[in-house]
């Protein structure tokens, strides 16, 4: 039977490669995603200010939920996952903002059209009435 030590000795290059890979992976995750979390929070606030809670409630809640998850991952020191979660939260918030602005503009169009319609009716009524 062959011993594990013997196996290692015969595959030095392989062992080295695995070691380097492990170091690289762990290095990439050492920094907490402070910047991403801050940026996500800022975008969520911005979306809130334009009225996302009213016009895009699902999207803004999703963004908040993901931000919370990102913070939890950060506290668990899963920095890489936390960073990605924060980025996903950020695009959710961006979408919430875009949707809010778009809905508002579409409402404005509707109201304008309604007002034009009423004006036209008013004119017709006047012309008929006299």
């Amino acid at each position, binding site marked *: 039977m062959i011993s594990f030590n013997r196996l290692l000795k015969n595959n030095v290059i392989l062992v080295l490669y695995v070691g380097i890979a492990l170091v690289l992976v762990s290095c990439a995750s050492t920094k907490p995603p402070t910047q991403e979390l801050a940026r996500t929070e800022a975008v969520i606030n911005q979306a809130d200010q334009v009225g996302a809670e009213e016009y895009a409630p699902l999207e803004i809640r999703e963004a908040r939920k993901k931000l919370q998850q990102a913070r939890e991952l950060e506290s668990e020191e899963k920095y890489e996952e936390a960073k990605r979660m924060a980025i*996903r939260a950020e695009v959710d918030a961006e979408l919430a903002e875009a949707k809010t602005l778009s809905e508002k503009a579409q409402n404005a169009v509707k109201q304008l059209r309604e007002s*034009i319609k009423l004006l036209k009716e008013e004119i017709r009524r*006047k012309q008929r009435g006299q």
Partner: protein
Amino acid sequence: MRFFKLLMYCFLSVFILIGCGGPPEDNPLLKEAKNNFQEAENDSAIVTNAPVALKEAEEALQESERLWEEKAGKELVDHHAYISKQKVAIARETAKLNAAQDEVERAESQRQKVLIKARKAEAIAAEKRAEEALSQAEKERREAQKARERAEELAERVNKLEAERTERGLVLTLGDVLFDFDKATLKSGGERAVEKLAQFMKEYPNRNVMIEGFTDTVGPADYNKQLSRRRANSVRQALQNKGISFSRIQVRGYGERYPVASNNTESGRQQNRRVEVIISDAEGNIDERTTSD
């Protein structure tokens, strides 16, 4: 030993072959992101209105695909696919926003036009109202003029009838000379007077008449009363013959009552022998003579 080493390499190469070979497992989120992106890419409104978000979606999609081909972890592939999907959605909303803003601009200018039209319509309506008020005033003026003319005409007609204006209205007196002595038949002069009266009544269909007969005090009162009534009746008959409705004519025989002159002189008696025709007002009403007279 050599055998084991060989075996090791065999396993390794098998693992490598398994890892490299065969298609990677399908990733549904990546597929969805890809479809969404392709759809957006073919939408000219999104391409022109949201190029930045679309570009970001494309980059994220490519990253996801690259990771998927390199068999990176599902979480990583999903992450970039999700970013791509959300960026496409953002691009869509941005395109909608821009379209809505264009629409707002167009609608606003249309609203301005309609507003101008509304003011114009208002002005036209006001003008129309003013014109109507004017024409109404003109119409009333003309009607008043007509009424005046009618009144003048009536006055003229009354003059022709030789009627007199009294408190009871217009009174036409047919004198004694128009009847044969002691008879109720009208003479030709009386017929002419009745002819004029009938003509007048045809022209003024709302005016009715009351015919009252009177005598002097010569002879028995009862007889006189009958004679006055017969004379009044013969005037009514003459009017009917000229086409005046029976219902428009009332008849009274007062005999010796209501003398207009003294019965002691011949000329006074002649004045008392008479038939009076009282013409009603425009509503057809005639006051009855009161007995105190």
